[in-house]
Every structure is written in C-alpha cells, then in structure tokens.
C-alpha cells in the first residue's frame, strides 16, 4: 500500500504548488518540498525491509485482458534510484526557490517538477512492463514541459521539441521491445521476466526485442548516435538540467539496462552492441566537451560521456562491471548535480556562463568556487574523491576486455576517454574560478544566499565521504543495488582507496598526464579541429523534421482539401471496392423464399417513384422542384409501409414528411433558389456511375435478403407484448417498454438537436448577411400573406387536430399510433397556425414554451423510468393494471403511457422549436405585415402588435 503512494504522492501532489502559488512563493516551494519529503519518508519506511533482502511488492489489476496491472516492486535497485530521485529532487526544489526569477511562473514550474518526479518514481518502481511504459512516456512529456519552461525563448521550444521527438521516438521502439519481451517470457510482470532469462536468451525473438529495447534506452540516456538532444535540452532552467538531465531522467535508460540485466545481459549480442556504443559515447562526449564554451553545454557533453561510461560497464556483461556501473551511477549523480547547480550559481551571479568571459571567481565567490572545484576534482577522477574509485574500477574492467579479438581497443579508448575527461575538468575549473580576477562581468558576482549553495554543499558531503571511506559509507548500498541488478550472488570485490599498483592505476596516471597536455594545447587543437567539416546535429535534425513536416502537409493538403464532395467520393469509392471484393470472394445462389405477386397499384407507385428519383437527379439544381419531388418519394415510401403491414411507420413517415418539407421550405426562403452547375460533364458522369454502383449494391443486398428466409427474435416480442407489456400494438410496446431505454436516449438526442438549432440560429443577422439574403428574396410575392380562408380554416381545425392527437396518443398502446405520431400531428396543427397567421401572431398567443416542453417531456420519461426503482425494479421497468370505474367500465392503465407522454411532449417541443426558430429568422429578413384587427376572429381581442425590429 505504501509503495503505491510513493509515485502517486508527487503525481497528485503536483496540484498543490499550482494552487498555492497564490499564497506566495515560499508557501509554494514549501508545499512542493513537503510532498517530496513525504514520499521520501514513505520510501525510507520501507528501507529496513529492503536492506533485509526482502522485495516489497503490491499489485492491483488494471486491464487484466492485456495483463496490465498496477504492480510495483521495491528491491535494492528500485530503492537506490528512488532514493536518488527524491533526495536530489529535494535539493533541487530548495535551490529552485532561489534560482527562479520573480517573473517566472513558479507554481507551474513546481507542478511540472512534481509530475516528473512521480513519473520517474513510477519508472523505477514498476513491476509491470506496460505500466513502466506508461510512466516512461510520462517522463518524456514532463521533460518536454520542463525544457520548454521558458516558452518565450525559441531555443527552449526547439530543445524541448527535439528532446520529445528523440525520446518519444525511442519510447515507441521500447513499446515494441518490451511487448516482445513480455510475449517471449509469457508474462508482463518484471519479476517474472527476470526469472526467465534463459528462456528469453534462447528465443529467436531475443535479438529484435533486444535491439528495440536498446533503442529506447539509448535515446533516453543520450547514447551515441542519439546523444545530440541532451545539450539542446540545456535551454531548460538550471535546476531542471541538474535534476533531469544529469541525475535522473537520462539515467532512466541506464536504469532499464540495469533492471533487465539478468534477462538480457551476458550474451554475445548484448556485449557487441552495448559495450562499444557506451565506449564511443564516452569518448565522443568527452571530446566535444573540451570545445564547448558554455558551462552548461560543457557539462551536458560530460554527462553524455559519463552515461556512456556506465552503459559500457553494463554492456561488458560481467558481474564486476555491473558493480562498477552501480557505483558510478551513485558517484556521478552526486558530483554532476553539484556541478550543474554551481554552473547555475555562476550564471545567476556573474550574468554569463561563457568560459571565455569567466575567470578568477574564486576571489569573488569563494564558497561556490570551493564547492564546484571539489566536485570537478571528483569528476576528473582525482584520488580521495568518489569519482576516482569508480573510474579506477571502470579502467580495471576495460583493461581486461577484448573486443572481437582486439585486445588493445577497450583499454586504449577507455584511457583516452579518461584523458579527455581530465582535460575538460581542468578547463571547467581553471578557466572559471582561477586566474586573474576580472571586472567586466555583467553583474557583480558574490556568493549566493544560503538556500542556493547549501544544496551544493550537501551534495559534496557524499563526494568526499565516499571518496575517503568507500566501504563504510557506500558499501552496503552498492552491494544491495548491485545484488538486485545481477540477480544472483555478488562477485568478490571490496571498495577501497588503494588496490596496489594495478593496470588501472597506470592508465589513470597516463590520463592525468595526457589530460594536462591536452588542456594546455586546447586552443591549437581547436583551431586544427575547425579545419574539418563537423556535422551540426541541430541543422541536420531540423532539416529532417522540416522535410517530414512538408511531406505531411502535402499529403494532408491532397487528402484534406476542404471539399466535402471529394471526401465523400473517396469514401464511397472505398466502400464500393470493399463491397465488390466481398461479393467476388463469396459464392452466390438465388434465394428460395416465395415472392409476393406484383399488383397494379404497386406497379404504378413504383413507376412514380422511379420517375421522381430520375427527375430529381436531372433537375436538382432547381431547388424547389427537387423539394417537391422529394416529398413525392417520401409519400410513396409511406404507401409502401401501408402495403407491407406497417401502419405505424406509414403514419410516422407521412407526418414527418410534412414537417420536413415545411422546414426545408423555410430554409430555402433564405437560401439561393438554384444551384449553379458545379462540375463538368465527365465529372457528373463519374459521380453518376459511383452513385449507381452504390445503389446497385444496396438494392442487390436488399433483394438477396428479402428472397431468403431467416430467423428473428420477433417471436419473443409478439408473445410477450400483451402479457408482459400490456399492449396489443407490438411496435409501440417495443418502443415504450422493451426497448424503452433506446427511446429515452432518442428523445434526449432530439432535444439536444432542437437546442442546437435554437443556438445556431440567431435571428439578429449581421448586416452583410441581411443584405445578401434580402437580395435572394423573390421579387413577386403572393398578394395576401395571410389569406382569411386559410386563417379561419387553420383556427377551426386546431381543436379538431388536437383531439385527433389525443386520440392517436391514447390508442397507441393497442392500435397504430402512440406518442411519436401524436406529437407529430399536434406539431403540424400548431405549425399550420404559424403558416396561416404569421410568426408574430402565434408567438404572441403561445402559452407553452417549446423548450420547457422538451424539458418536461424528457423529465417525465426519465421520472417514469426512475419510479421503477421505488419498487425495486430496474430503470424503465413498466407496469400496468386494469381498473373498473362506474359508467366508464373496465379500462387499462400502463405506466408506459406516462413514458409515452414524455415522448409526445418532446416531439411537439422539438418540432415547434426548430420551425419557429427558422421562421423567426425569416421574419427578421422579410418582415411580413402582422394581420390587422379586422382579420382576426372577433372573439380574440388582439394585443398591441410589437413592430418587427427592422421596420
């Protein structure tokens, strides 16, 4: 349980600094520190168990189908890394409080930092490879946010993007690699995978899995040839560089190599790939570091070099090298974090971090200079510092390594790496802190406040303590961690200052002598180096990514050209191709179902439909004609429903068609009345052929189904309709009872559509649109907008229509009808009033608000459903009973009727709202005179007529 909290605490705690920044910077920093401290406390509470050799595990299934679980594991390696992440994190939090400027958004910074911390803890504590991947990607994302923290700076944005692309791309490879690994091992739990090393190494998939995992690890840990992103990531604020890009995130790749060491290491392939990559990175990084003038850039390349060193040690595959690797991870984390923080202080105080403009700072800021030079000595590998010990172990291992039969390669290159490392360390320390005092700094350098140098000092303590008493101070931790890496018994070794006159000591001596010479001749070497062309990573990377962007834009521009017709054409062609393929790859026989004989009326209707369809295609550019022809087709479809035993459908279709036609007419009033000829004749033929093929496919499919028998689940509904649902109209019972949930969702959708229509159509049109639309109005209008006969007929019909609506509604459960149809009938009767008497007249007299009707309808339907809960039944369970009243006799009441009432109200509201909104817009465009007093029925005293706004 505690284990879960360790990564989750910073992840969720990230909200605190973001919120608390309003209370001031100190509160914000304290809260952040407190979160880290709490996580550290939790970790340390587990220390006794871990040091006793236990592996603490917790697990909770997440998506068991893909073997993804929230499982965490705390062993020596995890503990080592987690402690490093939290302790250095705390120091960085303190440092950043004083480093960040007043103008920097500190809350955001600490929030990102905590997110990163949580993600990183997740990586080192995960016991499931998929979970590890999730956290791995999270570290890439948070690192992106932190590098780009100063988002106003172009180099920060560029560096962040590059880091994200490189590490994110590596993450993709890693996903593949770890999934392969999991499938080889038959489990995605890391503890299981580690126990099946032999099985994995014997698998034919071992090599692909290894290569993919290595790409992931190498990109993250900036190994050659992916090392180029790390120096550009230095655009981040210095605390970030110290934390992410020296102590923690870049070690994630190395962590992964160490974590999977028992499962993957020890093979020929492992050694042949990992060791030389590490060696090359070590030498190249150290070489470039010698020619960097920016302190942070110099440190960045030195980090690359040291990461290479650790990678090489892990790559050697021997247990002794693994111990050395662990030891160096510890040492490097201490001295490099101290160096980054010192470089930040120099930059902060002196106003520059260019080596050429620095010098003599030891007199101006003695504390910082002393601390930084101690750390540099450790980095150079001077005896009595911790860097010396692990470097000696590295040289010792390299001295015994023969690569592909070449015995001198590793010893010589390792010595060269050490030599170059001595040289850049000398350059860093001497050029910055020693020499004559300069007085041309942008600021007046002096030692920073305690909060800034104390973290550095605290990091120097282990540098010296381990250097002097390695066995006593770090022996236990290194043994514990190395034991977890190796996953077996430790080799025979002891951490000590003096091992006698070993080959390593000789190599070390050579490195110091050579390094001194190199430092002194640096300027001449640099001049010589500049004669040769040097590939510039940034330009190459930018060129490559720009090429990808341009290519992507071209593809997008081609596919996504903004033309709906083009998209639909592509989709249609693809669908037809799939259909043709499916048809061609199956056997076909004629159906055996007996066909219904053709009757003359059916033939006539069919002919009318064919003519209407063809005519629509021919004359669709005359929009009114197209609309009329569409309603003809709709009417014939409704007749078809009548013919084939679907009275409910026929009623619905007819009434919906009326509403749709009115709606389209209203819209057409505001739109151009004709469509211009858009495409050339061949293009129209192409569209015709596509459409014809589509129609042929659908028609053929329908025919094939109709001429075959099939089974249906209808028998259940037919049998249960009366006893279960209490109604004889099975269609209606299905709608309001069996499938009531669908209907409920449907009326909600309808309501949403109506509200969207209301919101989309603002009757107050912009002046430009008003001008354009008015230009489209017909020049000739009928003489009388509101003919008295129509007005009188419509008003007389209203009560009649309402009575019909009620009748249809009430009989719906047993006979054709129901809420949908009744709603449509009533809506049409109301619309007729709008048409006859004008929008304004009806709006003035309307008592029921359409939106309230929609709300009430959905509300009633929902409450009917909820009422079932009161009887311990599931949502929308219906009930019915028979009641006997005197005079009336016995009748039935079903709760489904109430539900149907909800449907009815919603339908009326939706229809009236949509159409009245459209006519409101029409009214604002073309204000028609409101009927005058004499035209009104004398019974109704008309209220004063508010004039239309435009008038």
């Amino acid at each position, binding site marked *: 349980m505690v284990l879960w909290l360790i990564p989750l605490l910073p992840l969720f705690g990230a909200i605190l600094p973001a919120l608390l920044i309003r209370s001031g910077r100190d509160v914000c920093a304290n809260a952040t520190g407190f979160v880290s401290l709490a996580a550290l406390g939790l970790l340390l509470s587990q220390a006794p168990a871990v040091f006793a050799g236990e592996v603490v595990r917790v697990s909770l299934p997440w998506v068991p189908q893909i073997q993804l679980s929230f499982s965490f594991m705390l062993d020596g390696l995890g503990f080592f890394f987690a402690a490093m992440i939290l302790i250095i994190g705390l120091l960085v939090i303190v440092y950043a409080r004083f480093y960040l400027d007043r103008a920097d958004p500190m809350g955001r910074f600490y929030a990102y930092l905590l997110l990163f911390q949580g993600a990183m803890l997740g990586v080192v504590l995960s016991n499931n490879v998929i979970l590890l991947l999730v956290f791995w990607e999270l570290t890439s994302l948070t690192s992106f946010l932190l590098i780009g923290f100063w988002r106003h700076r172009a180099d920060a944005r560029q560096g962040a993007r590059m880091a994200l692309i490189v590490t994110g791309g590596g993450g993709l490879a890693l996903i593949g690699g770890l999934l392969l690994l999991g499938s080889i091992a038959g489990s995605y739990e890391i503890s299981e995978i580690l126990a099946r090393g032999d099985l994995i190494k014997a698998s034919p998939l071992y090599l692909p899995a290894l290569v993919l995992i290595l790409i992931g690890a190498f990109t993250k840990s900036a190994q050659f040839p992916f090392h180029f992103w790390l120096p550009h990531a230095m655009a981040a604020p210095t605390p970030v560089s110290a934390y992410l890009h020296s102590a923690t995130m870049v070690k994630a790749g190395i962590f992964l190599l160490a974590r999977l060491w028992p499962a993957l290491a020890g093979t020929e392939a492992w050694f042949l790939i990992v060791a030389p990559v590490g060696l090359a990175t070590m030498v190249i990084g150290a070489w470039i570091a010698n020619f960097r003038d920016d302190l942070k850039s110099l440190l960045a390349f030195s980090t690359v070099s040291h990461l290479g060193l650790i990678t090489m040690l892990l790559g050697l595959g021997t247990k002794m090298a693994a111990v050395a690797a662990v030891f160096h991870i510890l040492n490097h984390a201490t001295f490099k974090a101290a160096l980054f923080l010192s470089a930040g202080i120099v930059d902060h105080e002196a106003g520059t971090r260019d080596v050429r403009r620095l010098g003599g700072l030891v007199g101006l800021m003695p504390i910082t200079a002393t601390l930084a030079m101690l750390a540099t000595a450790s980095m150079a590998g001077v005896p009595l510092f911790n860097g010396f010990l692990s470097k000696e172990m590295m040289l010792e291992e390299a001295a015994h390594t023969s690569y592909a039969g070449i015995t001198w390669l590793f010893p010589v290159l390792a010595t060269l790496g050490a030599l170059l490392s001595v040289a850049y360390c000398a350059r860093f320390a001497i050029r910055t802190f020693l020499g004559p005092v300069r007085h041309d700094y942008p600021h007046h350098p002096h030692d920073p406040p305690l909060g800034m140098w104390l973290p550095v000092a605290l990091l120097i303590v282990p540098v010296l303590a381990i250097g002097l008493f390695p066995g006593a101070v770090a022996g236990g931790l290194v043994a514990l961690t190395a034991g977890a890496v190796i996953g077996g018994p430790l080799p025979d070794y002891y951490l000590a200052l003096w091992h006698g006159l070993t080959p390593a000591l000789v190599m070390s001596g050579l490195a110091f002598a050579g390094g001194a010479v190199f430092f002194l001749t640096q300027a001449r070497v640099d001049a010589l180096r500049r004669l040769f062309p040097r590939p510039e990573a940034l330009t190459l990377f930018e060129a490559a990514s720009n090429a990808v962007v341009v290519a992507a834009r071209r593809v997008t521009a081609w596919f996504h050209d903004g*033309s709906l017709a083009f998209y639909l054409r592509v989709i*249609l062609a693809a669908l037809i191709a799939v259909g043709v393929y499916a048809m061609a790859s199956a056997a076909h026989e004629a159906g055996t179902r007996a*066909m219904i004989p*053709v009757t003359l009326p*059916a*033939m006539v209707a*069919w002919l009318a439909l*064919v003519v209407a*369809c063809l005519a629509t295609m021919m004359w*669709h*550019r005359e*929009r009114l004609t*197209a609309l009329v022809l*569409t309603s003809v087709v*709709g009417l014939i479809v409704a007749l078809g*429903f009548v013919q084939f*035993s*679907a009275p409910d*459908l026929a009623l619905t*279709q007819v009434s*919906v068609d009326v509403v*749709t036609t009115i709606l*389209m007419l209203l*819209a057409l009033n*505001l*739109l151009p009345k004709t*469509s211009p000829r858009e495409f050339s004749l061949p293009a129209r033929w192409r*569209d*015709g052929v*596509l*459409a*014809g093929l*589509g*129609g042929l496919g*659908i*028609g053929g499919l*329908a025919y094939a189904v*109709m001429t075959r028998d099939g089974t*249906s*689940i*209808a028998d259940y509904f037919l049998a249960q*309709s009366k006893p279960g649902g209490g109604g*004889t*109209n*099975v*269609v209606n019972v299905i*709608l309001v009872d069996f499938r009531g949930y*669908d209907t409920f969702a449907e009326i909600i959708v309808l309501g949403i*559509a109506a509200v*969207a229509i209301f919101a989309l159509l603002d009757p*107050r*049109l912009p002046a*430009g*649109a008003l001008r*354009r639309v008015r230009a489209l109005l017909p020049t000739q209008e009928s003489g009388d907008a509101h003919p008295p006969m129509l007005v009188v007929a419509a008003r007389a019909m209203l009560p009649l229509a309402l009575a019909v609506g009620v009748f249809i509604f009430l009989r719906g459960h*047993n006979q054709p009808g129901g809420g*949908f149809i009744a709603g449509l009938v009533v809506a049409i009767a109301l619309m007729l009033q709008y048409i006859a008497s004008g929008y304004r007249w009806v709006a003035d007299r309307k008592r029921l608000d359409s939106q309230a009707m929609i709300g009430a309808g959905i509300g009633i339907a929902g409450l009917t459903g909820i009422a079932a809960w009161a009887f311990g039944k599931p949502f929308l369970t219906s009930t019915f009973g028979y009641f006997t009243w005197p005079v009336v006799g016995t009748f039935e009441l079903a709760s489904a009727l109430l539900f149907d009432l909800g449907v009815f109200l919603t*339908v009326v509201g*939706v229809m009236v709202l949509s159409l009245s909104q*459209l006519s409101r817009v029409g009214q604002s465009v073309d204000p028609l005179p409101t009927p005058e007093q004499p035209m009104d029925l004398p019974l109704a005293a008309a209220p004063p007529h508010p004039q239309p706004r435009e008038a």
Partner: protein
Amino acid sequence: MEMLVASAIGLMTATGLFLILQGRSFPVIVGLTFLSYAVNAFLFAMGRLTVDRPPIITAGAAYTDPLPQALVLTAIVISFGMTALIVVLGLRGFLETGSDRTDLSLADAAEEHGPAPAGEDARRERDGAARA
C-alpha cells in the same frame, strides 16, 4: 414485389448518393433525405415483406416482424432531427460566409457573392447591429 422494393431502395440510394456528391449544401441535404428514405426502407426490408399482417395482437393471427418497424420508426424521427440540424448548419454557414458551397475555399465564395464577412469582422458587424 420484392424486386420492385429492392430496385426502389437501390434507386433511392443512388439518387441520394448522387446528390450528396454535389458541391452545394442544399442538394447535399436533399440527398441525405433520400438516403434516409433508402436506409429506412432497407432496414424495414430486413424483416422481409409481408402483406396484411400488421403486428397488432388479435386472436390467432400471424404477424409480420415488429422489430424492424420499431427500429425504423425511431430512425424516421431521428432523421428529422438530423435533417433539421444540418439544414440549420447549412443556413448558418451561408449567412456567415455568403456561400453555400461545401468546400472551404473562401476565395471562391468571395468572388461569387462579394467579400464574406468572416470571423472578427462578422462579429463586430453583428454587435453593431445588435446595438443599433
């Protein structure tokens, strides 16, 4: 009779498809209406064709399949909602841009109907109208 229904479904589909491939919003909307007819009829046909056997329970009668009918009934109503929404979207687009083309090349629209008040200008214009 099946042949007639199938061919009618096919023809309505073809008409709908042809119309939605046009470059103006109104034919596209009409085309969608045709496609709704076709799809509804197609779904209905999945229950096979039966004459004179409506799914109203009476003593000892045989019935047609009620389920496709129930599905189609809601489909008809929902298609109205969809059509109404698209009509209004098309109308709004026309009012905003002065063009009812279904592609995004506003330059063409400007040629046809004069400069379109788009974005910021339109908003300012409307605000002005509201204040007036």
